[in-house]
Structure formats: structure tokens, C-alpha cells
């Protein structure tokens, strides 16, 4: 405190004031300042003014962005990627999305099952195949346990089928001795095929619900 009687304050005193305001001063500096301003009215006034300035700064009113600010910004953004738009549209229209998805999958599976290779399915039993007439024959006396599906071939039943018979894109002949315990169905066009697949789906959904209920 040499400067006290000479009316000249330590040069760093104002710097210390700012450090104190910034909560950046050491204990030693703080003591130095507070001791000093007790004896030096100029520095005391200076410090008071700085504190007042700071309180003005801190009390300035908080500001709100003008109305419509966000939408104005959004209008100026570059185009967003298409995939994002589609994803969001799907999120906001779940039913339509589900319907479209269903139709797409349905069409796909129906078409692929229609065009897939010639096939023949039966769970058991011996079948004969006549290449010349492209005909699958259930021989007399033979019993097929379960459903029989024949695709892109004709079918001749001389024996017995204990289940449903489905002939796709072919014809079926029933010999007088032949017997089918389930339904016989012939599907010749893709439209019929679609109808058949849909019926199957509705049935399985129905089964699902009846199963649920019976639980």
C-alpha cells in the first residue's frame, strides 16, 4: 500500500477488479482490492461503477425470436432427401403403408408361385407320371394320405386321396373308381390363382382367430 499517501493507486488495481468480477482472482488479490478500496475512494467508485455496469448487463431483458422464425428458416432449407420424406410419410400413414406393403408382397408371392417350376406335392403315397400325356396318375388301389397339389400337369385319379386336391394350370380326371374325400379345385388363370391364395389367407387368418378363441 505504498501508493496510499501519494494518491496513486497500484497500476494493476483495475485489472484485479475485473478479475474479481470474472471470479478469476486469487484470495490474495481479493484481499488486496478490498483493503485498498477502504482507503481509496477513487478506486471504490470505479469498482462500484463496474459492478453497476455488470448488473445492468445481467439484467437486460431476455429476447424472443420473432413470430414465424422457425417456419421461415425451414422454407429456406435445401430440399431434403427423398428417402427421408418417404419414411416420414410412412410413419404418418401407417394404415395406407400397411395396405400397400400387403398388396406388394401379395402380388409378389402370388406371381412367383404361379411362375415357379412345375411341381407336385403329396405327403405320402406312390404316384405314377405319364410323360406323353403330361399326366400324374394316382394308381388304382393307392391311397394318398393328405392333400395333393399338382402344378402344370394333368391329374388322373384312379385311387383315393384322403384330403383336398388342387390342380394348377392343368386338368383333372376322376376315374369312376377314384375317390377324393376333400375338395377338388382347378386353377387355370393367374386371377383364379390370386383368388385361391387370398381365400387361403383368409382361411388361415380365420383359423388363427378361432384357435385364439378356443384357447
Amino acid at each position, binding site marked *: 500500500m505504498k501508493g496510499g499517501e501519494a494518491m496513486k493507486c497500484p497500476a494493476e488495481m483495475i485489472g484485479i477488479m475485473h478479475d474479481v468480477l470474472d471470479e478469476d482472482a486469487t484470495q490474495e488479490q481479493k484481499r488486496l482490492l478490498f483493503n485498498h478500496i477502504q482507503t481509496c475512494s477513487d478506486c471504490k467508485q470505479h469498482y462500484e461503477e463496474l459492478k453497476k455496469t455488470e448488473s445492468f448487463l445481467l439484467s437486460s431483458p431476455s429476447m424472443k425470436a420473432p413470430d414465424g422464425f422457425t417456419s421461415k428458416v425451414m422454407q429456406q*432449407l435445401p430440399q431434403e432427401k427423398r428417402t427421408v420424406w418417404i419414411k416420414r410419410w410412412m410413419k404418418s400413414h401407417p394404415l395406407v403403408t400397411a395396405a400397400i406393403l400387403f398388396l406388394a408382397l401379395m402380388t409378389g408371392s402370388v406371381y412367383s408361385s404361379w411362375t415357379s417350376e412345375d411341381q407336385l406335392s403329396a405327403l405320402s403315397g406312390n404316384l405314377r407320371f405319364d410323360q406323353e400325356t403330361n399326366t400324374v396318375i394316382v394308381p388304382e388301389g393307392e391311397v394318398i394320405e393328405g392333400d395333393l397339389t399338382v402344378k402344370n400337369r394333368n391329374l388322373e385319379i384312379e385311387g383315393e386321396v384322403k384330403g383336398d386336391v388342387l390342380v394348377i394350370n392343368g386338368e383333372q380326371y376322376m376315374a369312376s373308381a377314384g375317390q377324393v374325400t376333400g375338395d377338388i379345385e382347378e386353377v387355370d388363370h393367374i386371377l383364379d390363382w390370386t383368388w385361391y391364395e387370398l381365400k387361403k389367407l383368409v382361411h388361415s387368418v380365420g383359423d388363427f382367430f378361432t384357435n385364439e378363441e378356443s384357447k
Partner: protein
Amino acid sequence: MDAIVKRIILQVRKGDHNAFGELVELYKDRVFALSYRMLGNRQEAEDVAQEAFIRAYTNIDRYQIDRKFSTWLYRIATNLSIDRMRKKKPDYYLDAEVSGTDGLTMYSQISADEQLPEDEVVSLEAQDGIHRAILSLPAKYRSAITLKYIQELSLKEISEILDLPIGTVKTRIHRGREALRKKLQEQ
């Protein structure tokens, strides 16, 4: 808060406009306040604040996700505000060694007691003394003071926003505060 912001930013990076809208909602008041305190005019402040968000959107891939988003956003807004101030006052254009991104150093040679042109003072919308006093500060002090007191940021954050050492930020705040004290005594 930070976790929410990070999640939103990841959505924005995938190109989601609506997610960006959430970011604008979160920060619009603070960014507007920053540009308003820097420019002193609502219309210009709104222009600059909008521009800041659009820049943030188009440069979102350059934002480092582990840093604080507000720091990055305020940096864009501060630089744009200073750019705007420079355009308003072409005679302040001192760009000899300034690179495009750092708009601050061009003001380093301007003395603290530079006065605003008359018409600027008239155009001020806010009449309160402290606001006018802030606007009379040169840009380098104005930005430091605004970030400290209007945004209430730490010295470290301010130094990141202004891309200056903490010591320089402290000096600017000290000098800015000293200049404001004088202005308020004069009023």
C-alpha cells in the same frame, strides 16, 4: 439436453428437415438475442439468425458431434453478425491478414472509443442505455461482452466460439466492461 440435441442432429444428418425444426425451436431465441445485441436492429438480427441456422443445416456434417452444439452454432452466428457489421461499415474493412472464417481479427486495429455513425444510433430500436452502450463498442469487445452477459457463457466457451486464447477473451471482456462503464457514466 445434450443427449436430446445429439439425437436430433443424427436425424438431421440423415436429411430430416423436421428434426432440424426442433433444433431451431430450441436455439432460436438465443441466436436471435446474440445477433440482435451485435447488430442492434431486429430485421437485420432476424436475417442473420436465419442465415446462421441455414448455414448450420448445410454444414451439419462438419459439426463434431462430441463438441457442444451451442458453441458451434454461436460461432456461426457471431461470425455472420460480424460480417454483417463489416458490410454496413465498409470503411472498417481491414482484412489484410484475415482468412474467410475468422471475422474477428479484422477489428483488432480499431480503437475502443470509435463512435457509431449518426444514422446507426437513430436506427436503434431498443432505447435502453446498456444496449446502446454495447452497440457503441467495437466488434471485438461487443462479441465478447455479448457472449458473456447475454448468453452467460463461460470464458472457455467464449474462447472456443471466438477461436481465441482465454487470455485474449479476458482482456476483451475487461476492456469492453471498462468502456461500458465509461459510456454509462456519460449517459
